[in-house]
């Protein structure tokens, strides 16, 4: 019995030793293939900028979808984030630091991190899923092939307007999120900690640097491109029917969310003086 079991284990190990390198190689090749295709798509997007007659009207339409359509969820998220930041800061600091510090903590947290990152993650789910599903469905129902067969460039008709809408509207939404977060943070601090308006504003201004706002906008711009370009790529290259569209949608949301978090770290390292 032991001999049979041992031989089974050793044959499985041998087969793993044989198949593992090919499995790794296959994944590495697939990874490089994605990098290559994604780079080509970026070049195509840049090249399609000159076809402004195609993408401008469609970009305006997409801006309405992204901006107006996401306004409520962004406001809601930012408002909760501001209030929670205020309450947690109050819990941690009350009695140990002056109350006006609350203003600084809430303002800096909202501007530097919470408004851009939370908005981007929400938009990665909302816009990312939508774009990947839309483009994926268009791919598997041959609508993209149809567009190409009509001599029209799907990049300028479908992809560029979506990426432009993210690049334009996400910074606007982040500014709205900052305002909503600050207001809710102030209201929460005032109602639960009894901080005065003067103290809150004083704290906010004491630590504030105008670069903080620029930093938030730079992040918002980068996130705006990421949460649209990744779903566009994934949807555009979707395969294999309804299952492929479902997989593309999940992949788009996961990858754009992970990239937002990765980019958040990289930009903090690059742009924030330590």
């Amino acid at each position: 019995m032991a001999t049979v079991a041992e031989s089974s284990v050793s044959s499985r190990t041998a087969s793993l030793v044989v198949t593992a390198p090919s499995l790794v190689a296959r994944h590495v090749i697939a990874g490089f293939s994605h990098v290559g295709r994604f780079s080509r798509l970026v070049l195509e997007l840049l090249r399609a900028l000159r076809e402004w007659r195609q993408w401008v009207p469609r970009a305006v339409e997409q801006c309405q979808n992204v901006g107006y359509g996401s306004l409520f969820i962004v406001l809601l998220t930012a408002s909760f984030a501001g209030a929670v930041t205020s309450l947690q800061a109050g819990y941690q600091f009350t009695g140990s630091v002056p109350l006006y510090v609350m203003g600084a903590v809430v303002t800096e947290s909202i501007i530097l991190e919470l408004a851009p990152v939370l908005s981007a993650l929400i938009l990665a789910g909302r816009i990312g899923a939508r774009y990947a599903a839309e483009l994926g469905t268009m791919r598997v129902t041959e609508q993209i092939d149809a567009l190409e067969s009509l001599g029209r460039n799907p990049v300028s008709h479908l992809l560029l307007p979506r990426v432009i809408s993210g690049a334009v509207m996400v910074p606007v939404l982040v500014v709205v999120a900052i305002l909503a977060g600050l207001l809710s943070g102030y209201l929460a601090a005032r109602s639960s900690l009894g901080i005065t308006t003067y103290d809150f504003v004083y704290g906010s201004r004491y630590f504030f640097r105008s670069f903080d706002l620029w930093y938030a906008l730079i992040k918002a711009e980068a996130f705006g491109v990421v949460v649209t370009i990744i779903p566009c790529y994934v949807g555009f290259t979707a395969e294999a029917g309804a299952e492929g569209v479902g997989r593309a949608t999940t992949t788009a949301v996961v990858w754009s969310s992970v990239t937002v978090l990765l980019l958040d770290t990289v930009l903090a390292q690059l742009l924030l003086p330590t």
Partner: protein
Amino acid sequence: MRGVVKSFGAHVVLNGVDFEVRSGETVALLGPSGTGKSVLLKHIVGLLLPDSGEVLVDGLSVPHLSRDSITRLRQRIGYAFQMGALFDSLTVYENIRLGITDEKLYRNRTYCDDRVATCLKMVNLSPDVGRKMPGELSGGMKKRVGIARAIAGKPRYLLYDEPTSGLDPVNADAMDALIEQLQDELRVTSVVVSHDVRGSFRVADRIALLHHGKIHKVGTPDEFKHAKDEVVREFLDRDFQLLGAGF
């Protein structure tokens, strides 16, 4: 097409296809489902590139054309997709208008209104269909709108991908009649991909049978009807038995 080979992974779909369409004729490309008929059609318009071999249209090597050149070539080719492939976020009018490939004409609203109305009439649809969304149309109507979009740019070549698939016999006959009518009116060169033998015999000047990744036989409908070749007989007999028809 000369020696066209196309594989998807390990699966070889086209294995050295030689295929020629003469100016002004209608060729039906027959073969059972999954033999690569649509794949072959997509090579003509450059939607797929061959692994090896040549695809020539108007003397131009399709796989080697620049983006601008392939765009210009595609403006001369109308492609009617199997399920219509209509843009579901656009109205029927906008779908057909997108088929007007000349940018100046595309921006001329009066021309577009006239052209869309004409194309709808050509495919036997009423003008009010233009206001509908693709989701409101039946399968047969979607195919007709797809054809209307394909002819909107006044192409020199028309490619039909399974125009009668999924249609009941009455609608399939109507579709064949429409293809015949368009050939008479437009005088274009056409390739009709189909597995419907009866319809192909009706619309085609010549028929090509795709078998095991190669063109097995090319000939007139009469030559096909009287062919002794085993593969041809097997394919035709199966289809006619299914239809309950005979020669």
